[in-house]
């Protein structure tokens, strides 16, 4: 009895003292079994499968109408748009305030506990991307952040003190970190941005304790290396792997997307497929070697990249159990791949698609004529921001439904003349044209779409006024949270798409420049849903 009382007291102590609880280590095992701790949101995509799904069920379709703000945290410094997806561990929330400030909050109240801001150079180069970060990773007693000037920094989880810091690339030639790092067993993995200046993309792994680099995988070859023949003898530039990947611990493979070749819109100087740009790489995290690759968009000339976060899932196909992954790609196609072999399983457009009439048996786009940017502008769907840009999808494994925030929008693409001399990385943007002449907003819209995960067949959609930059969040209680571009955070019934609740956050998701990735977590038995908007991070809860 005494023992029971002691443990009850201990439990209460832990539950009521998030700052104390934060002293707990977050060993790899806890990350590995994140499904068993739905109160925590351990990493960028929620878990290694990047499902953005929670087993929390306190907030339901029946009571969500009562959801109200529990707290609001106003960013502590002006800056670029918030694109953060927070991490919550044992009652502490780790947010990133743009560009690279990490702040630890009491996840019950929004009260700041500590904050760390890197000393940045007076001028930070960010050609082609925004000076912001999409989040942190946690492992053991540290928090990891990629800074905008291209350092990977390990912070003490309790104090924010720097434990180690390494430089990945030279920001003077446009290397910068916007992605959330991935933490696996003893390693931190991340890739920088910068393709718009023609930097050579890579993915790095670092020893989580010391910051020692374990391997570097270049995403595009050196001249003469395998793959270089797909560049037609031209300059090999780009392929920045600037978003986060997913991880299958059993297969011991990480799945990581790569960005566009450079120059973006004029491919005349790089005839061929331009491997391994706009591709998904399956990488052994122990060695950094590629097991297989799948290229979504060979010879990309629409700035579509291929960095969309893959969702890992298992399903039975033709009576056989399969290990699969799915990606809603920026080129407008939804792909299902075998994640053991990289074999193409299925692919269908999930938005209006005028670039390709479909995918062939191997998943290669059957490109339609007159879709390459011309000297006169060419209208192509989707726009250069794609059917979806970098914001993640969500996946409900219970209903086997994949949710994507789709962008129904076309744009005029045009190419410009390339310089006569070889491009020199560091001299500035080498776009080779443009793809940002958008159709009128009244000819565009956004939609949350629910797709059957194995076929991509649409189950329902929820139309929004404009394409938005907000990831969906799915819960086991059949809720689907997201937000529109005008500042409405909302909850849908994830089985039907019916609106159950919405809340005007006060700032437009675009005019205030927030591109949020909502999360959910629980502290002291209360479930919260967090979303960023404008200059604020808002946590909602039931009364």
């Amino acid at each position, binding site marked *: 009895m005494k023992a029971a009382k002691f443990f009850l007291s201990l439990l209460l102590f832990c539950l009521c003292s998030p700052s104390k609880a934060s002293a707990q280590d977050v060993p790899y095992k806890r990350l590995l079994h994140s499904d068993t701790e739905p109160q925590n949101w351990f990493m960028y995509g929620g878990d290694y499968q990047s499902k953005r799904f929670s087993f929390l069920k306190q907030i339901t379709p029946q009571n969500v109408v009562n959801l109200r703000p529990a707290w609001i945290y106003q960013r502590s410094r*002006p*800056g*670029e748009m918030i694109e953060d997806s927070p991490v919550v561990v044992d009652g502490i929330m780790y947010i990133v305030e*743009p*560009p690279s400030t990490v702040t630890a909050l009491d996840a019950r109240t929004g009260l700041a506990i500590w904050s760390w801001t890197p000393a940045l150079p*007076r*001028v*930070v*180069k*960010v*050609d*082609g*991307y*925004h*000076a912001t970060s999409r989040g942190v990773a946690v492992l053991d007693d540290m928090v990891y952040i990629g800074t*905008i000037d291209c350092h990977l920094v390990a912070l003490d989880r309790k104090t924010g003190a720097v434990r180690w810091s390494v430089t990945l690339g030279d920001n003077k030639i446009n290397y910068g970190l916007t992605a959330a790092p991935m933490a696996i067993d003893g390693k931190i993995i991340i890739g920088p*941005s*910068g*393709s*718009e200046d023609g930097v050579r993309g890579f993915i790095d792994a670092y020893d989580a304790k010391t910051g020692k680099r374990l391997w570097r995988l270049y995403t595009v070859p050196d001249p003469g290396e395998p793959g270089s023949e797909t560049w037609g003898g031209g300059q090999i530039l780009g392929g920045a792997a*600037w978003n986060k990947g997913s991880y299958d611990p059993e297969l011991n493979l990480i799945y990581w997307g790569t*960005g*566009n070749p450079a120059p973006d819109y004029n491919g005349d100087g790089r005839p061929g497929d331009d491997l391994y740009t706009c591709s998904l790489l399956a990488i052994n995290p122990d060695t950094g070697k590629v097991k297989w690759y799948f290229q979504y968009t060979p010879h990309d000339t629409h*700035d579509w*990249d291929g*960095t969309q976060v893959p969702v890992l899932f298992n399903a039975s196909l033709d009576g056989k159990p399969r290990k699969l992954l799915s990606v809603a790609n920026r080129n407008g196609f939804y792909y299902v791949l075998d994640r053991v072999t990289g074999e193409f399983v299925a692919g269908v457009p999930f938005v209006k698609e005028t670039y390709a009439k479909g995918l062939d048996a191997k998943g290669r786009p059957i490109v339609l004529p007159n879709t390459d940017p011309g000297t006169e502008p060419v209208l192509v769907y989707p*726009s*250069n*921001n794609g059917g979806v*840009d970098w914001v993640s999808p969500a996946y409900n494994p219970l209903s086997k439904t994949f949710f994507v925030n789709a962008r129904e929008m076309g744009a005029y693409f*045009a190419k*410009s*003349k390339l310089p006569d001399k070889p491009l020199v990385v560091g001299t*500035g*943007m080498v776009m080779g044209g*443009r793809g*940002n*002449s*958008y*159709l*009128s*907003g*009244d*000819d*565009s819209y956004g939609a949350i779409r629910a797709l059957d995960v194995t076929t991509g067949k649409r189950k329902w959609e929820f*139309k*929004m*006024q*404009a*394409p938005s930059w907000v990831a969906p969040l799915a819960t086991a209680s059949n809720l689907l949270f997201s937000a*529109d571009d*005008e*500042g*409405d955070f*909302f909850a849908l019934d994830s089985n039907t798409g019916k*609106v159950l609740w919405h809340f*005007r956050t006060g700032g437009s998701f*675009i*005019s205030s*420049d927030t591109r949020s990735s909502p999360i959910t977590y629980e502290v002291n038995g209360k479930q919260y849903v967090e979303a960023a908007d404008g200059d604020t991070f808002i946590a909602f809860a039931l009364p």
Partner: protein
Amino acid sequence: MSAIRSCLIVALVFALGSLARNTLPASQDPQRRPGTQSAAPPIVGDPDKGRDLFQANCSGCHGIDAGGGDGPDIQQAPASLGDATVANIIRRGVPDTPMVGFFSIGDAGAADIVAYIRKLGSTMSSETTKGDPRKGEEIYNSSGCPACHMIAGQGGEIGPELTSIGAKRGPSNLHQRLIDPGVNLPKEGNVGDRGKWTLYLLYRAVTNDGHVTEGIRMGEDSFSIVLKDVNGNFHALYKPNLRSLEKEPLKSLMPSFKDTLSSAEMDDLVAYLVSLKGATP
């Protein structure tokens, strides 16, 4: 990588860049020299390079020939303001207007654009007006325009304010709008990569109980819309309560003056509108 949205120039870099400039000693900062424009070394740009940059970044608002669209006619801007000033506006924008700073274009790029605009301005004389603005003002007042439009604080508030319409629109543009008010409606300013929404777009909403509202869209999101009717009243409508919500493109609350004004009267009215260059508070 994420697309280049020139209108959303990275604020940090801008801020840091501004800081860097602001910390320069005055003697090193051309913007701070006495007699700014004359003392600054002349900027020599390449109009051919500037053409590409202009078409990619400027033509959406200022028209393909810099003769104006949703943004003003700027063909004569280099001649009247000086190359350095125009280059500075390109780099830094104009506060509180849709003209954002195109910081990443760089000094050389801005100079190239200025050279191209100057070339356009010298080869294409701006449109001229044939009418008499004095007569045009009488026609404006006798044709019912003040009921809906405001000029220098006087008039209605249904349609756009016209106090400085002449600084924004050329004669042919204004002429066309008097004939076909619903065609080629203006678009909003800087909206990043969402695509510009149409201003003054007419909607017809029917509620579930059959009530019909027609009006100009003043605001809209995924859940609601606010319409302004012909009397200037606002109607806030919740979309789930609507049976239908239809756009009425090409329609306008403003009548066409095609059949009510003679050609000469139309010229006079256009001349008057073109003469409206700014506020007189």
